[in-house]
């Protein structure tokens, strides 16, 4: 248990290192640099421009720049944003909890909805429940997130304007107010993610339900629901959990649109703003955070496997 965890940890850092190189060097391919953002395009003399470049170390070879950046990044220092003039890490520290909360809430809701419904659909395979569920699933998949989000926003403001907060409230400040500001964005993303979770659970459960040990459990008189929710689900779980972990990574990084619609000050919006403003340090840093979350969650899932499946435990 310890050794695989350590190797896993090592490879995790390896992946992050590669990501950092990609992000850094690809970023440097974009025409213009941080100095041009700071100095601006008009009215700056070439001398001013060169001075800023020197101060930022942009006159040095790319590899030296990268190593400098990496050395700082390891200590959590991603530089200063030319736009907000604040430390990038301070911005991220504010944005991260918002996105994390959003992703966690979505993970919970799509699991709570998707898993039981998926089992139900598998059990009634080809029955009307299954058919109805698969039809609504198709709809939930097909409608783009920005359409659902805007529709929800419209409906909420028309029919229940007091129920939801349109401006973000941090949970440390007011938990209920926070949930009221999170409800609509969570609902928006839950729709497609719950649909995918359901589909995944359905196919995993279907596969397991035809296994002989399910017949064994039925033959010995175990209750139907218990056969489905304990005996079958336990075996259908590994692929579902893998999928949920993957989803979580996608959610953290893929909430740009939703955060924009509902003006949530999360990482996604931070990313959009940074790209629009050519705020290079922020773009690089947020990308690294996304990558780190993705890699860490997937590593955690890998470590969870032996817990879920006894056959993968080393004796």
């Amino acid at each position: 248990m310890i050794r695989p965890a350590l190797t896993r940890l090592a490879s995790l850092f390896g992946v992050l290192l590669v990501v950092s190189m990609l992000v850094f060097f690809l970023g440097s391919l974009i025409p213009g640099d941080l100095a041009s953002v700071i100095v601006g395009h008009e009215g700056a003399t070439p001398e001013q421009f060169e001075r800023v470049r020197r101060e930022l170390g942009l006159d040095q070879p790319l590899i030296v720049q990268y190593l400098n950046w990496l050395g700082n990044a390891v200590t959590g220092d991603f530089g200063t944003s030319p736009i907000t003039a604040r430390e990038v890490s301070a911005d991220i520290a504010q944005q991260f909890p918002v996105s994390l909360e959003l992703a966690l809430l979505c993970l919970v809701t799509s699991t709570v909805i998707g898993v039981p419904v998926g089992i139900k659909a598998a059990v009634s395979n080809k029955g009307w429940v299954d058919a109805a569920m698969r039809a609504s699933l198709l709809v939930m998949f097909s409608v783009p997130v920005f359409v659902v989000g805007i529709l929800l926003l419209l409906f909420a403001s028309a029919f229940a304007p007091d129920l939801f907060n349109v401006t973000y409230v941090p949970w440390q400040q007011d938990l209920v107010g926070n949930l009221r500001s999170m409800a609509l964005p969570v609902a928006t993303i839950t729709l497609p993610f719950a649909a995918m979770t359901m589909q995944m659970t359905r196919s995993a459960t279907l596969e397991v339900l035809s296994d002989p040990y399910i017949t064994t459990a039925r033959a010995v008189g175990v209750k139907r629901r218990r056969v489905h929710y304990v005996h079958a689900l336990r075996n259908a779980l590994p692929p579902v959990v893998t999928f949920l972990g993957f989803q979580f990574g996608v959610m953290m990084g893929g909430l740009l649109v939703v955060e924009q619609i509902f003006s949530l000050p999360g990482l996604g919006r931070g990313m959009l703003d940074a790209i629009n403003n050519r705020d290079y340090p922020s773009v690089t840093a947020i990308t690294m955070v996304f990558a780190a979350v993705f890699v860490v969650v997937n590593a955690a899932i890998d470590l969870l496997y032996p817990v879920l499946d006894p056959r993968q435990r080393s004796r």
Partner: protein
Amino acid sequence: MERLNPADAGPETRANVLTVTDLQTAFPTRRGTVRAVDGVSFDVREGETLGLVGESGSGKSVTAMSILRLVAAPGRIESGRIELAGQDVLALEGEELRRVRGSIAGMVFQNPMTALNPSFTVGWQLMEALRAHGVRDPEELQRRVEQALAAVGMPDPARQLDTYPHQMSGGMRQRVVIAMGMINEPRLLIADEPTTALDVTIQAQVLNLMKRLTREHGTALLLITHNMGVIARMCDRVAVMYAGEIVEEALVRTLFSAPKHPYTSGLLRSIPRADHGRGKVPTMTGFPPDMAAPPSGCRFADRCPYVVDACLSDRPALVEVESAHKTRCLRVQELGGSVADLTVRGVA
């Protein structure tokens, strides 16, 4: 469990624990309905061992699954009557049916590698079988599971509780499956090819174990197999299935010494025997009929060496030709007491 051991009573006085009457189980397929079990009737008496023998596809496993209504959809029991310890199984619903499963009739499945849930310990699964029938007390659960494991000859039962199926050998797993079938002290154990998936050396041990256990507890045994050797060693009576029908039913001794159906006789000839020396084992030619469109006459007709025109048009009934000996053959009187000595067409 204070029950009079039915094995002590004479065979005539024993009551039936299972009576199957005219059972039909069908599967819809693209080519039409396949009646895998087509009008099967038999009974199992308290404490006796009935063998159900036949080749793959003869409907013996579907018969076994039908008894506890475990036939997987889209398979369906179309008609017939199954009476298990006085209860009409086909009339039971929901909870009533669930309570019968495991407690009145237990099952042992063919493949111990897949019959146990890989995600739970052996102890948990056995306890689950007890919990399904209302045992709640943790100490009682533990005690009875250890007892059950000891009864099937598991070394160090207390330690096996935390073992996962994949950590055990096939033979050990099958012992667990048997323990699970027997743990609620059913009156009938249905064993579907219980040794087919096991090494030959383990087969005898498992068979002996089942024989001893059912005898000790007075449990009746319905043993499904394709192996005539297993029948000879284990059973009191035997029913031979072919193409969804029972074609012959007799006491084991009678069946082996004087089979009355050409199919049974062919089966007996194809048992490899050490004293036959080297050479080919005789085999039957041909294949069982297409069950989506079974012949209207005798289903064995096109493989039968004694076939006459009438066999192709008239479907023979299962008739009792001697006491406790039934056969399904039009020519049974003509062919005389036994067909065993006659040469069978197509046998090398």
